[in-house]
């Protein structure tokens, strides 16, 4: 099928970008969205033009590396899907597809569709680990965790950090991401010990990175490939208020 593309091209953060029009005549509906971009890049190489740079890694929907705005929606038209798991069968012959990078002040464009999401890593670094040296792995049954708690922690921990929540939020808030990490650690006994310091450090880091406020529009949950629940945000607010109230200095 024939596909028309309008793709954001930008050399670097220092230069201005623009939407550039491309056309692909032989796109198979079985192709993944990223394979379609590969096809376009091959045609650019043959014409000795600079290829379109975009983030991708596993192409299995689990690494969180890929992610672009497709026709104005994070990860495209399908619900709870990563960009790599979107296929060209979701589009029709003759369609025009608009492709842009995830946009937020905290996600500066590196080139074209490639962005720097180091701000999310810094939130994790600010408190999302356990500082005690645990030595060898302990006996698995030594630390009892009930099944519902393990499942709830896993639900939160399934966040792949793609940044679609930030990109789709009208306030560019990273609350869904941060709250998922906070919940995951707070629920399990290993993380429970430092939950107070952690929530304060991670929320402060989130603000320092320049993310916006959450106004509970719930758009993030709709676009999240892992269906992370917005209730984690409420839980983070609870944890944060409690930590603020109880901290000693």
């Amino acid at each position, binding site marked *: 099928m024939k596909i028309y593309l309008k793709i954001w091209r930008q050399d670097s953060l220092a230069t201005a970008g623009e939407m550039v029009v491309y056309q692909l005549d032989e796109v198979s509906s079985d192709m993944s969205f990223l394979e379609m971009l590969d096809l376009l890049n091959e045609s650019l190489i043959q014409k000795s033009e600079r290829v379109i740079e975009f983030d991708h890694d596993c192409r299995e929907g689990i690494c969180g590396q890929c992610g672009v705005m497709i026709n104005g929606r994070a990860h495209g038209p399908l619900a709870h899907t990563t960009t790599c798991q979107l296929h060209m069968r979701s589009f029709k012959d003759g369609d025009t597809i608009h492709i842009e990078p995830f946009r937020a002040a905290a*996600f500066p*464009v590196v080139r074209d569709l490639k962005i720097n999401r180091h701000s999310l890593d810094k939130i994790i670094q600010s408190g999302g680990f356990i500082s005690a040296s645990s030595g060898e792995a302990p006996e698995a049954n030594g630390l009892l965790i009930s099944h519902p708690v393990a499942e709830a922690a896993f639900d939160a921990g399934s966040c792949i950090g793609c940044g679609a929540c930030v990109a789709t939020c*009208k306030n560019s808030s990273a609350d869904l991401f941060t709250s998922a990490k906070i919940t995951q650690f707070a629920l399990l006994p290993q993380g429970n010990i430092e939950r107070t310091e952690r929530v304060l450090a991670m929320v402060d880091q989130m603000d320092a990175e*320049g993310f916006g406020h959450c*106004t509970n*529009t719930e*758009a993030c949950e709709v676009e999240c490939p892992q269906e992370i629940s917005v209730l984690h945000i*409420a839980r983070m*607010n609870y944890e944060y208020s409690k930590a603020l109230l109880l901290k000693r200095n």
Partner: protein
Amino acid sequence: MAGTGLFLCFFLVIHLLGNLQLLLPAAEAKEQFNWYSHLLAGNLFIKIVSWVLLLSIIAHAVYALIITRKSNKANGTKYAYDKRGASSTWNSRNMGLLGTVILVFLVIHLKDFWYVSDFTTMNLDKQGNKDMYSVVVLTFHEWWYVLIYEISFIALGFHLLHGFFSAARTLGIYHPKYVNLVRYTGWVYTAFITGGFMLIPIYLYFNN
């Protein structure tokens, strides 16, 4: 936002319950409502509450401006092609716009009743209370004035529909059972407040 918002939500209930006296038969409503206005005007506690109320409205609006500015900064470059609206409700994205409509309405509303009752000389009724009832009835004599009020109440309704449950989230209610309870309570609350306030001007317009 949540703290001031919920305080204003609570005030709306008291305000509406008081106003429902306007729906009584005209003679009875006049006596009853003027007595009620006089009661409020003469009470020091009510005076203090009214100043706290005014401060809450200002704090609510100022804080909204601050977080909007922060969000605008956080957004960076705008999308060239944006269909993100499909993933959230219109009112949740336009709380600022709805709030502005309500703020403009409040200025008109305070000028209509608060200014008139507190800063002008007024006719007294048979009991010797200021005749606020006649001021209210006269105000809703004009259809376009009723329309201004009705439009403002619709804006208020959409503002509350998002604001009520959003405030609970900000305060940290995350248990799924109570989250749903808050959501349904918010719907009933919004229907009661919006319906009640919308009914009064229409009733007065058609009955006088």
